[in-house]
C-alpha cells in the first residue's frame, strides 16, 4: 500500500497537443479513486503515466515517498489490468498468474502458494490449466485480475477493465471488485468512462474533461454539488436538465425566466444578488409531480413516457418550448399527451454561468 501523488503533471505530445494539463492529485494509501470522463479527456493517459507506460512531459509523480518519473514500470511496484485483458495467449492461466512472480525470482513454493490463494479468491481453480483462448470474457477478466492480485503490488491500476463485458456481467464484476478492494485495501486507481461505474466503485471520483481535472470529491458530493456545468451534465443518469434563461436575485428572492415566462421563483441558498444570463440545472429526479392548485406548480405537457419498472422517465415541455426529462414514480398514471403539473425540489436547483462549461453560481457548503 502506498499513497500516489501527482504534482502539476502534463502530457504534451509532438505538435504541442496537451493530453493532460496540470493535473494535481493526492491519492491516499488504500484509497479507491476513479478517474472518470468522456473519451479523450486524458484519464487513461494519466493512468498510463502513473504506470510508467507514458513518459511525463512536465511535473512529478510519486508512489509512496519515491518520485517515479524515471523509474521503469517494473520497478514501480504496480499491477495493471487492461481493457482487453492482455493475457499471454500461449500460457495457461496458471502461468499467466505466476509469470511476474517467476521473473522476480520468487521461490517455487511461494509462487504456488500465491497462485492457489488467488485462484481460490477468484474461483479460478478449474481454469488453471486452460489457455486464455478457451475462456469466456468474464473468466479472462478474472484471470487478468488474478494476475494483478498475485503480485501484491503497492498500487492497482485499472484501465476500463469492465467495458468489454456485457451489462449483467459488468454489474456482477463491479460488486466483486468492490468487495475485493475492501478485503485487500490496496491503493487503487481506476479509469472508466462510465459514470455509473465510477459512482458505485469509487471512494473518491476525479472527473476529467479536455485533459483537466474538473472536480475531485466523493460520489455523493459530486452528485449533489457539481462544480460546473460539465460535471453536472456528466454525472447522474438521466443527465441533468439545463435551461438557458435570465437569473434575477434580489433580497433572497430568486427569479429565473426565459422568454418572459417564469420558470422558477422562490429562494435558493448561497446565491449572491445578481441580474444576468444563466443556466438553470435540475436533475430529472428533482422534478416532482404536483397537483394543479398547489403553489409553485407549473403546467407541463407530456411528450413521451419510458417505463422503467417502478419508475418512469417522462419527456415533458413547459411553456411550449422548454423540454425536460423527469423521473417520477410509475403509479401516477401519466401518459403521453396528457397535461400535468410539476414542481421543483428547490433545494436541488443549480445555477451555472451561461457559457458551455459554466461554473456553478450557487456554491453549497463545500
Amino acid at each position, binding site marked *: 500500500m502506498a499513497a500516489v501523488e501527482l504534482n502539476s503533471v502534463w502530457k504534451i505530445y509532438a505538435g504541442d497537443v496537451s493530453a493532460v494539463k496540470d493535473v494535481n492529485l493526492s491519492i491516499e494509501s488504500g484509497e479507491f479513486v476513479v478517474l472518470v470522463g468522456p473519451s479523450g479527456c486524458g484519464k487513461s493517459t494519466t493512468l498510463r503515466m502513473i*504506470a510508467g507506460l507514458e513518459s511525463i512531459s512536465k511535473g512529478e509523480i510519486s508512489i509512496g515517498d519515491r518520485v517515479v518519473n524515471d523509474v521503469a514500470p517494473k520497478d514501480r511496484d504496480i499491477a495493471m489490468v487492461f481493457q482487453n485483458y492482455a*493475457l499471454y495467449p500461449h500460457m495457461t492461466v496458471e502461468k499467466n498468474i505466476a509469470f*511476474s512472480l517467476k521473473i522476480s525470482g520468487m521461490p517455487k513454493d511461494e509462487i504456488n502458494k500465491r497462485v492457489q490463494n488467488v485462484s481460490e479468491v477468484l474461483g479460478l481453480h478449474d481454469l488453471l490449466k486452460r489457455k486464455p483462448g478457451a475462456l469466456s470474457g468474464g473468466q479472462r477478466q478474472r484471470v487478468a485480475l488474478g494476475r494483478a492480485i498475485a503480485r501484491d503490488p503497492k498500487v492497482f491500476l485499472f484501465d476500463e477493465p469492465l467495458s468489454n463485458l456485457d451489462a449483467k456481467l459488468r454489474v456482477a464484476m463491479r460488486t466483486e471488485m468492490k468487495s475485493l478492494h475492501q478485503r485487500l485495501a490496496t491503493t487503487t486507481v481506476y479509469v472508466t468512462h462510465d459514470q455509473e461505474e465510477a459512482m458505485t466503485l469509487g471512494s473518491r471520483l476525479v472527473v476529467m474533461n479536455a485533459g483537466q481535472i474538473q472536480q475531485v470529491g466523493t460520489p455523493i458530493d459530486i452528485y449533489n454539488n457539481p462544480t460546473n456545468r460539465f460535471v453536472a451534465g456528466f454525472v447522474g443518469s438521466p443527465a441533468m436538465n439545463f435551461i438557458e434563461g435570465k437569473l434575477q436575485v434580489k433580497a433572497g428572492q430568486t427569479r429565473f425566466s426565459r422568454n418572459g415566462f417564469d420558470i422558477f421563483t422562490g429562494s435558493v441558498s448561497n446565491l449572491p444578488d445578481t441580474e444576468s444570463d444563466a443556466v438553470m440545472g435540475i436533475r430529472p429526479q428533482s422534478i416532482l409531480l404536483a397537483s394543479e392548485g398547489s403553489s409553485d406548480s407549473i403546467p407541463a405537457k407530456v411528450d413521451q413516457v419510458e417505463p422503467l419498472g417502478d419508475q418512469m422517465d417522462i419527456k415533458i415541455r413547459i411553456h411550449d418550448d422548454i423540454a425536460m426529462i423527469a423521473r417520477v414514480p410509475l403509479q401516477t398514471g401519466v401518459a403521453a399527451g396528457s397535461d400535468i403539473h410539476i414542481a421543483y425540489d428547490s433545494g436541488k436547483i443549480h445555477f451555472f454561468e451561461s457559457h458551455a462549461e459554466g461554473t456553478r453560481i450557487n456554491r453549497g457548503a463545500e
Partner: protein
Amino acid sequence: MNGKRFSISIPWVLVHLLLIAVSIVVIVPLLYLVISAFKTEQGFLEHTFIPIGEGALGIDWSQLTIRQFGRLFESEIGIGRALVNSVFLSATTAVLATFICALAGYASAALEFKGKRAFEWLVLAALIIPPPLLIAPSYQWLHTLGLLDSYTGLILPAVAPAFGVFLFRQATLQSVPKSILEAARIDGLGEFGIFLVIALPMLRPMVGAFLIITFLAMWNNFIGPQIVLQSAEKQPLSVVIYQTQTAYYSDYGLLMAGTLVSILPVAALFLFLQRDFIAGLSSGAVKG
C-alpha cells in the same frame, strides 16, 4: 442440425471446375517427374507417361528402372555431398533469416526508436529493388570482403531480406496487441525478453511460414551458388543436378531422378511445418 443440406449450385460447380483445372496443372508435371525418374533412357523417349506394353497390368516393365538413383550417388556425380551442402545452407539461412527478420520486424512495429521512420523507408525502398540488379555489386562486395567461395558469402546476404522484415512488421501489428507487451513490461521482462518470450510465440504461424519460404529460397537458389561458390565440393543440389547435363547430351532420366531427390526434403519440411500455416495462435488473447 437438419438445415444443412448438400446442394449443387452453379457457383459451386464453377468453383470446383476451376479447382480441378488448377489441380491438374499442378499435379501432372509432378506425376511426369516421378514416373520419368523411374524410366530407362528408351522408356523416357518412347512414352510420355507410363510405358505401355505386354507385361503385367499392360505395362512394359523392362522400360522401368531404379538405376538412375544409384547413378546419382556414384562418385562421378556425388549427390550425397550436394544434399548435405544444400541442407546445411538452407537450414542455416532459414533459421538466421527468420530470427533476424522477426527481430527487426517486431522492433519496427512495436518499439519507438530514433530513426524509425528512416528505417521503415529503407525497408520499403529495398523491397522495390529487383534482385538481379544486385548480382554484380554484391559480387564486388563479397570479393572485397574475401567471402567468395565460402558459405558465409552465400548466407550473409540472405539473412535479412527486406521482404521478411516487412512481413514480420505486419504480423506483429496484426497479432501482437500493444497492451500485452505493456503487461509484460510491467511484469518485469526486459525488451529482449518480451520479444523472445511473449512476441515470438505469438508470431509462431508467421515463423513457420517464413522458415519454409527462406528454406525453399535457398534450396532453389541456383544463380547464387553458381556465382559465389567455385569449389565443386561446396556446390549444392541445384547446381550439381544441373551439371549432370552437358552441352551435347541431356540425360533426362538422371535429371528427373535428381530433381525427385531434391524435392523430398522440402516436402518433408512442409509437412512438418504446415500446421503453423493454419494455426491462429493469438485468438482469444485479447477481446477481438
